[in-house]
């Protein structure tokens, strides 16, 4: 890293002013005064921050708000360093610059073992691997909201942007007033000097843009005024009065609406399409055949005067559907195949070993007892409340897109390819997302909307899928199976752990759909397939954790917590089995394996303590526990469960979490509650069955999710105080809940549930 200093000398009553210039590392993510376009009265200070004439802060918001509170959290980072209240920060659209790309989210794709990357104990290999991937991610500059990575990614970048802007503004005031910079104070964006001069940021912005910053340092934790406070979210008033703008709420002059019918068989095609009856309906304007876009199944869209007219037209289409040439899919056959594959690989030391330590075969040979169990998980749909939609307009060689997307850059590129224009001719606006959960990391619907907009003579068109299309044409959480094998010695110690799992890998399929240029003919091992299995924190000397990546042909995608979503169920239920088999308390057993992982142990102890682990419960109730690290955060959950007419009822969930530094504890608590309930819906109800290529679940009546009456009355969140950089928050609460409930059910029934859903 090159670093140079420049001194500016100015003579004044108070003496010489010294302003140093700390140059950022090459390819830093700060941008310049000209990165953001400016309107009259606005001054750009860097690629993130503009100042208005009246002293407000405009922050380029690069991440998508889908409920996780990221707009509030990221605004807090900048407000903190600029010494302004959150009310002074207004969000504006970030553009296409690569500085908005996500680095942390891609670094997290490395298959690293937690023992090698505990904060302060990172190995050289971990450091080197992270450095290389960070460089590559920075070059690619892919703007992605996902992987619970937004705060981790922005932590240094946005605080530095805020601190630098503040230093420039203070420097400008210092030069103008000829007063020493060190004597200036800032309160809510107003700079003053004890001798009297005062002025808000807007008054110094123009000078600040050409004033190099003095040596810039972000605040120390002891000086934080906002970070760590449960500040109210900035988006919630709009979300209580109907004014929050989701993708489906875009309204433009002359706008048309489109409805979609995909081939019911995944991967199939429309053959003959008879649109006569549809075109005769009032308000129906056009029928458009659609090929596959970024992995979608082909189909037919109908354009009409309203979403309802379009849907009436879509229902009136007479379409001959053709099965995919490769044949139709069957989820039951796929599940049987996965188990057979995992069993075969387990008996032949097959699969890609994501982690190996010691000699698991020798441990098995020497074992006094061997425990084996096979676990299963089904396909899952996302079913975000806002059905899939996108609005597009193609006019005079320009394309404008309004999309609820987690992936705006790749969406823009697909829009350009679809319309046959350069990316410079495309403008993309990210709306609020009515839930993302990973579904909106796919961009199929954006290609569809642009394709339809090519047919509407310059009029904007809003494509909206029905709920049935949403559930039957998702990119599903892959089905999975795992053979779990443990070796136990004569003293009851766990000496070996072999896990051999099988299932489709998500990342290579997603790359094929969205980044075909970076996809090769051979899949690289996908960490997400084995995460939650290969990276267990428990001290077991001999391990072999391998995965067989299959290619079922089912469209698979990222689903909140990805591989952890089912792998934590496999691993934390099996750990519970081992506790039972060795006659140990589930909490004490885990703690005995966590001597070298004090952060994990502390989280587990906190959850157990707050839940009253070991204390008596009313008759018919039992506790279950699970501990899991994902997305850089450690979460333990203790659940209290009873059975009502044979069905599990979850009364109370106690979450303890180490998420590193907590930016907004209110939002962290919200996300833990959210993740628990999302995970519970899947644990108790979630399944997608595919028969003859057709997804059998279609809408909420046959795809039930948790409702208010079924939700735990109490979900408590307890956070560990930490000085480590922030980890993820949106996803890590989901993985532990299914195994915790299953473990509680075992206490109640004596029966091990090794498949999902649990009822």
């Amino acid at each position: 890293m090159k670093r140079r200093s420049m001194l500016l000398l100015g003579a004044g009553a108070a003496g010489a002013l010294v302003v140093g210039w700390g140059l950022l590392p090459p390819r830093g993510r700060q941008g310049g005064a000209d990165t953001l376009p400016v309107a009259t009265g606005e001054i750009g200070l860097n690629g993130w921050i503009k100042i208005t004439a009246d002293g407000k802060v405009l922050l380029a918001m690069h991440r998508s708000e889908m409920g996780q509170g990221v707009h509030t959290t990221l605004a807090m980072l900048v407000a903190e360093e600029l010494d302004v209240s959150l009310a002074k920060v207004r969000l504006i659209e970030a553009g296409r610059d690569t500085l908005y790309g996500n680095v942390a989210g891609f670094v997290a794709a490395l298959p690293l073992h937690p023992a090698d990357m505990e904060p302060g104990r990172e190995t050289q290999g971990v450091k080197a691997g992270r450095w290389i991937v960070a460089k590559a991610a920075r070059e690619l500059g892919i703007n992605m909201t996902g992987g619970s990575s937004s705060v981790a990614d922005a932590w240094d970048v946005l605080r530095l942007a805020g601190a630098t802007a503040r230093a420039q503004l203070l420097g400008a005031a210092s030069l103008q007033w000829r007063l020493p910079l060190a004597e200036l104070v800032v309160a809510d964006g107003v700079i003053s000097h004890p001798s009297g001069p005062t002025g808000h940021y807007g008054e110094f912005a123009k000078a600040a843009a050409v004033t190099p910053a003095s040596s810039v340092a972000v605040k120390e934790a002891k000086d934080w005024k906002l970070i760590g406070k449960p500040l109210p979210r900035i988006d919630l008033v709009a979300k209580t009065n109907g004014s929050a703008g989701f993708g489906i709420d875009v309204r433009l002059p002359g706008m048309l609406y489109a409805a979609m019918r995909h081939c019911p068989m995944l991967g199939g095609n429309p053959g003959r399409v008879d649109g006569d009856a549809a075109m005769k309906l009032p308000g129906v304007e056009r029928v458009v055949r659609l090929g596959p876009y970024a992995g979608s199944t082909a189909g037919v869209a109908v354009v009409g005067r309203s979403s309802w007219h379009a849907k009436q037209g879509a229902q009136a289409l007479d379409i001959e559907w053709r099965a995919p040439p490769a044949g139709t899919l069957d989820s039951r056959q796929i599940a049987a195949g996965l188990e057979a594959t995992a069993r075969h690989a387990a008996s032949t030391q097959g699969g890609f070993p994501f982690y190996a330590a010691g000699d698991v075969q020798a441990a098995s040979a020497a074992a006094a007892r061997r425990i084996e169990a096979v676990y299963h998980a089904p396909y899952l749909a996302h079913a975000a409340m806002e059905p899939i939609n996108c609005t597009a307009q193609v006019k005079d060689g320009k394309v404008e897109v309004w999309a609820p997307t987690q992936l705006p850059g790749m969406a823009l590129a697909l829009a350009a390819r679809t319309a046959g224009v350069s990316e410079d001719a495309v403008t993309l606006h990210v709306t609020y997302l009515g839930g993302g959960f990973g579904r909106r990391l796919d961009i199929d619907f954006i290609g569809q909307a642009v394709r339809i907009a090519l047919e509407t003579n310059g009029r904007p068109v809003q494509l909206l899928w029905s709920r049935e299309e949403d559930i039957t044409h998702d990119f599903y959480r892959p089905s999975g199976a795992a053979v779990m094998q443990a070796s136990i010695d004569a003293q009851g110690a766990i000496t070996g752990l072999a896990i051999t799992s099988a299932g489709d890998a998500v990342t290579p399929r997603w790359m094929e759909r969205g980044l075909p240029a970076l996809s090769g003919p051979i899949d690289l091992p996908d960490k997400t397939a084995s995460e939650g299995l290969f990276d267990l924190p428990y001290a077991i000397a001999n391990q072999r954790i391998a995965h067989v990546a299959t290619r079922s042909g089912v469209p698979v995608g990222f689903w909140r917590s990805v591989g952890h979503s089912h792998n934590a169920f496999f691993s934390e239920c099996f750990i519970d089995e081992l506790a039972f088999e060795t006659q140990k308390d589930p909490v004490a057993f885990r703690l005995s394996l966590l001597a070298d992982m004090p952060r994990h142990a502390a989280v587990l102890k906190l959850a157990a303590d707050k839940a009253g682990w070991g204390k008596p419960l009313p008759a018919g109730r039992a506790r279950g526990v699970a501990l899991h690290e994902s997305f850089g955060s450690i979460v333990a959950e203790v659940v209290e469960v009873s059975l009502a007419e044979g069905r599990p009822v979850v009364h109370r969930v106690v979450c303890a979490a180490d998420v590193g530094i907590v930016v907004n504890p209110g939002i962290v608590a919200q996300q833990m509650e959210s993740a628990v309930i999302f995970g519970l819906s899947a644990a108790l109800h979630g399944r997608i069955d595919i028969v003859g290529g057709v997804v059998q679940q279609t809408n909420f009546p046959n795809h039930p999710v948790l409702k208010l009456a079924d939700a735990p009355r109490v979900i408590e969140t307890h956070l560990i105080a930490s000085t480590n950089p922030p980890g993820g928050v949106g996803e890590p609460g989901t993985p532990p809940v299914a195994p915790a409930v299953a473990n509680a059910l075992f206490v109640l029934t004596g029966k091990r549930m090794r498949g999902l859903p649990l009822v």
Partner: protein
Amino acid sequence: MDLSVNGQTRTVADADGDPSMPLLWVLRDVLNLTGTKFGCGVAACGACTVHLDGQAVRSCVTPLASAAGKPVRTIEALGTADQPHALQKAWVTHQVPQCGYCQSGMLMAAADLLAKNRDPSDAAIDAAITNICRCGTYPRIREAIKTAAKALRGETGSPRARSPA
């Protein structure tokens, strides 16, 4: 056809006003009142809940014809910026919404409950709020309804916000 929406008479042109068109789409696509949301189209999720003649209905299965001559109230008129409904205030106090998409329907369903029952029990809340939220805001919704009910009963004492940590 004339429709009474949020205290105003809105004329729905004949070309748009197929009597079988669900009220949801008339509100959203004809009148551009987009606060009311589409979630399932089969009255299963409640995102489209509005008040028709003072009753909560799922507008995705309510034909336009059945709304004629009856007042329709949507989320846009639950309260005003200056005077939000007690539920809207409680929703902010308890920091209920996450993605926010289902919340219009949740609020309209809760307003219907509180119009009929100023002191709802947990069981009454369970029975009245059958809307779906995928972000898992249910525990906060329950608490916010209780806080709003208290405010509507005129009971003093500031509502206790959920402890965030």
